[in-house]
């Protein structure tokens, strides 16, 4: 719109057209500075305010190839298993979440069963439940099931928290598929399950991909649950490592912290860049109630 106006009266309106960008740029600046700071402080011995001190160095990244020379890393699990744990955690929550969301979303979209509306409503309610309030109860349940201090337990809890969002997203995608296609599959001789698997799922693939990425990132970034429910450390994730370095007591090595932090967010950034188109579609695809 602004461009169209600008073409008609270039002299006066060019500045007006630029105005929104100026405002947005100013608002975005602090966040941008944050990331830039994170990036360059990982390559300098010290940073005073925004000013790096000393020479460019890879010293802070030593934890990758020589973890034993980094004091803060000495009494922690090595970085590779931690990364692997984080990956398993994120991938499993994503996979289980995807499976359950796509089945439940289909059921909510297509089947009429008693209590459907109530289930839909309560799923939404769960979505707005702050997970902190459930920590104690979860602790008790995990202990009773023998899943406390195990990656599996945290995976299940994280998946459960992610499901309401996933179910609603998938329901929205299924809602957009015409009934005719499903009826046609039934008449062609498919049962309900095969119709779901062969016809419906391929048609919501954009939704599945987007949801997979979102659930993965959510799992990757999750701090609270692994921190609380896996205290012994052998199965910890990267987020708890960052927290560990930050809370090491009197003196925090910001160089190391930023390097580990950057290492931690890099996969997510790469994933976002790769999956950008898919993620856009989750909102463009329209979520209907």
């Amino acid at each position, binding site marked *: 719109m602004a461009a169209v106006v600008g073409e008609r009266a270039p002299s006066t309106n060019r500045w007006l057209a630029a105005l929104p960008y100026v405002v947005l740029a100013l608002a975005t600046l602090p966040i941008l500075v944050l990331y830039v700071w994170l990036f360059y402080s990982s390559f300098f011995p010290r940073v005073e305010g925004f000013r790096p001190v000393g020479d460019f160095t890879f010293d802070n990244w030593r934890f990758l190839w020589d973890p034993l020379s980094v004091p803060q890393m000495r009494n922690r699990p090595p970085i590779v298993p931690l990364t692997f744990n984080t990956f398993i955690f994120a991938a499993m929550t994503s996979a289980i979440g995807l499976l359950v969301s796509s089945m439940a979303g289909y059921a909510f979209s297509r089947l009429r069963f008693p209590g459907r509306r109530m289930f839909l409503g309560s799923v939404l309610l769960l979505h707005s439940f702050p997970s902190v309030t459930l920590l104690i109860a979860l602790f008790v349940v995990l202990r009773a099931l023998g899943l406390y201090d195990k990656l599996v337990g945290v995976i299940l809890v994280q998946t459960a928290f992610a499901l309401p969002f996933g179910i609603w997203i998938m329901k929205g995608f299924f809602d957009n598929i015409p009934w*005719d296609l499903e*009826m046609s599959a039934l008449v*062609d001789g498919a049962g309900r399950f095969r119709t779901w698997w062969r016809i419906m799922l391929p048609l919501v693939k954009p939704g599945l991909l987007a949801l997979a990425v979102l659930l993965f990132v959510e799992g990757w970034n999750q701090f609270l649950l692994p921190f609380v429910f896996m205290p012994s450390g052998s199965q910890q994730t990267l987020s708890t490592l960052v927290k560990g370095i930050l809370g090491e007591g009197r003196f925090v090595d910001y160089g190391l912290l930023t390097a580990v932090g950057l290492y931690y967010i890099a996969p997510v950034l790469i994933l976002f860049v790769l999956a950008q188109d898919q993620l856009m579609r989750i909102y463009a695809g329209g979520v209907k109630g």
Partner: protein
Amino acid sequence: MRVALERLTKRFGTVTAVQELDLEVRSGEFVALLGPSGCGKTTTLLMIAGIYRPTTGTIVFGDRRVDHLHPKERGIGMVFQSYALYPHMTVSENIAFPLELQRAVTRPDREARVREAAAKVQVDELLDRRPAQLSGGQQQRVALARALVKRPDILLLDEPLSNLDARLRHDMRGEIKRLQKEVGITSIFVTHDQLEALSMADRVAVMRDGRLQAYATPDELYAHPVNRFVAGFIGSPPMNFIPADLAARNGDLVARAQDIELPLPPAQRPRGNAAGATVGVRPEHIAIVAPGEGQAAGEVYVVEPVGREQIVDVQVGGRVLRVVAPPGYGGKIGDRIGLRFAPERLHLFDPQSGDRLA
């Protein structure tokens, strides 16, 4: 295979979509379910398909009662209004899908049958395309191939032509009819277009508000409509209706409305002694004659040439009658004319119930 619907009823909540429908389709017959939107024709089709379960009543295929069976157990093929081709599959995968679900069909056999079905509807050149790359007519053909590939006992078509443009619709009309006769498959199709129903079907079931109004051959529906609704729904341009009084004159019965007096030949006389009737006469059964001749006098209201003929609206008294005139007719708006009714082509309906009197 014969299809019989007995006292078939479908209610959605408090709404009755189909009420006590009795219908029998003979083996190999091509039947149209015709009616305005909301008349229950598609609901009926979906009950035959097994998508909807009837509230009460039975559906019989051959000698087998099927109303409790799943769609996949019924041996039907169906073409949907939207064609419902699977967008993520190629044409050949679409056509193969019903066979994929039949374990008895081996892979080489499946490929042969896909090619055979595709050839039958002339889409064998398009097997590797996706539905989005096809025109409406091609999609329709693929949908037909997919419906027929598993050699079903019954073919169902829901508004098969309504998504095509006028030209293509005409072509497909003939083609579907030919294909149906060639395959010899019992077929039922739903349409709201009376021309489609008359031109394609062996018999037409006219429905209204969930009830069957008439079930007869196209000729019969046209020549002897059983009630006013059927008379008005079948035929284009639609039949004229004239409320009239019935009176005896010189031993003859005449139907009299303002400015019109129609002697009724013996065959057209109503049973019993009704005092009034709604007289129906099709536009093609009224001829324009010189002023003073015929049974009514009127004035040309508007002339619409439609190529093969001209449709003339004629003002007679307070009403407008529609008349079909030959292409050479050169009448102008405001011309005074006479109208001659073909007496043996008059239809008399009860003014209240709309039932046929004679």
